[in-house]
């Protein structure tokens, strides 16, 4: 078979899609927006599968943003463009979603790419993973043996590898609804402003009472060893209970971060540079959240 050769399977329902994926594992691969998968096949980075399972027929069922029983539920096939017309872009508690949106690919890609697809890609430059980690999100999966909800952190095994059973599909993203006085920010640096992978990404989420930090969550594109996004828990624990100020942010990023984070060197840039940029990213996101909540 040639490089860019495969058959398409158009499922009639979610059950049908899951069954087909499970019975043809690993020869069937689901395709949502296709903005990453088709390039991977084209470049020969993954072998063309026998079947691509077209998720477009499930679009109506899995494209929504709802706020229900203390959770914000995002359907996996919601495109990035659709996200911009929802509560996520209007509420200050979700301010980070706007930041990611403006850094995500280009407008035309945002019409195709889906949030579920961004998670399934599972790379260090999957921006929504970085942000959702800061929101402590969980992912709902559907498989032949039923549904299960897994914390996003547990789902990420390694670069381009999720802890999925054969045939399992990402169907929903669950975010615990943030309280009032909570907000987030996201920052991504590269040589250009957009259409970038990002040499350093960071998202921060803070819940404040006055100036006091009640809850802090910080995530980075790469924390240590594995090239997948992760949380910087030591930093979060240090921040909790303290008063947010520019000095505190300066202190945690300059003194604590280098001890926790270990970056890698490749042909793009060096580990030292990545670390410096991560420091700036964390600093900026924390201060931006402070500014958004009106305490700095």
């Amino acid at each position, binding site marked *: 078979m040639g490089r*860019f*050769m*495969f*058959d*398409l399977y*158009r499922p009639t329902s979610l059950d049908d899609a899951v069954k087909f994926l499970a019975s043809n594992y690993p020869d069937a691969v689901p*395709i949502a927006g*296709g*903005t990453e998968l*088709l*390039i991977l096949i*084209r*470049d020969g980075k993954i072998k*063309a599968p026998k079947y*691509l399972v*077209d998720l*477009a027929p499930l679009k109506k069922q899995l494209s929504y943003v709802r706020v229900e029983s203390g959770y914000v539920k995002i359907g996996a096939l919601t495109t990035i*463009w659709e996200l911009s017309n929802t509560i996520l872009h209007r509420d200050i508690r979700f301010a980070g979603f706007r930041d990611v949106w*403006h850094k995500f*690919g*280009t*407008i*035309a*890609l945002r*019409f*195709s790419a889906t949030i579920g697809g961004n998670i399934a890609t599972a790379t260090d430059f999957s921006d929504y993973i970085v942000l959702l980690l800061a929101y402590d999100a969980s992912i709902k999966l559907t498989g032949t043996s039923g549904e299960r909800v897994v914390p996003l952190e547990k789902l990420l095994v390694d670069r381009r590898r999720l802890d999925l059973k054969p045939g399992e599909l990402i169907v929903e993203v669950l975010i615990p609804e943030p309280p009032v006085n909570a907000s987030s920010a996201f920052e991504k640096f590269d040589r250009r402003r*957009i*259409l970038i992978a990002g040499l350093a990404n960071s998202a921060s989420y803070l819940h404040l009472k006055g100036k006091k930090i009640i809850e802090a969550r910080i995530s980075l594109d790469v924390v240590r060893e594995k090239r997948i996004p992760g949380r910087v828990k030591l930093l979060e624990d240090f921040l909790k209970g303290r008063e947010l100020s520019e000095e505190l942010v300066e202190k945690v990023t300059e003194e604590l971060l280098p001890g926790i984070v270990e970056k890698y060197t490749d042909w793009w840039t060096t580990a030292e540079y990545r670390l410096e940029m991560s420091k700036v990213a964390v600093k900026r996101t924390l201060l931006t959240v402070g500014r958004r909540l009106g305490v700095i």
Partner: protein
Amino acid sequence: MSKLYKVKLRVNGRDYELEVPGCERLVYTLRYRLGFTGVKEGCGRGECGTCIVLVNNEPRHSCLTLTARLDGAEVVTIEGITPPGILHAVQVAFIETGGVQCGFCTPGMIMVAKALIDRYPDPSVDEIREWLTSVLCRCGSYSLFIMAVKKAVEYLKKGQVFFTEKEVREKLHLKVLG
């Protein structure tokens, strides 16, 4: 031989029934099956944006869209934004501003500009910039494209959507034929 899929497509206002393999990309279908060569393939990986067409009124990279997934969709390419012999305000604005240099990215630029104006009838410069970054122009006429979109917005505000060939030629002091 790979399996063939029946696809009903409405391209530029005309209905087509096609049989395509699952791996065929929309840019191939449009250019080589249907002959709409206004769609250009640049990078083939969703970066340059020259292949952007409107699928159900949304700008999409036709190099990253599989035709077999589009059953029942409506596709508009640069050839189909107006009837033959008539130009759209966006096209006229692009000609007038002189933003076209080599012209390879122009179809993509115009499709994105049209998608933008359809959604935001009065876009800010930041919005125009953000939308036009979808397409790369190696001649570097970005500032002219931004001017062109502003000009198109002016035309549309005045209610001038379509221009006949005669109007365009008179406007640009070109020889009026016939």
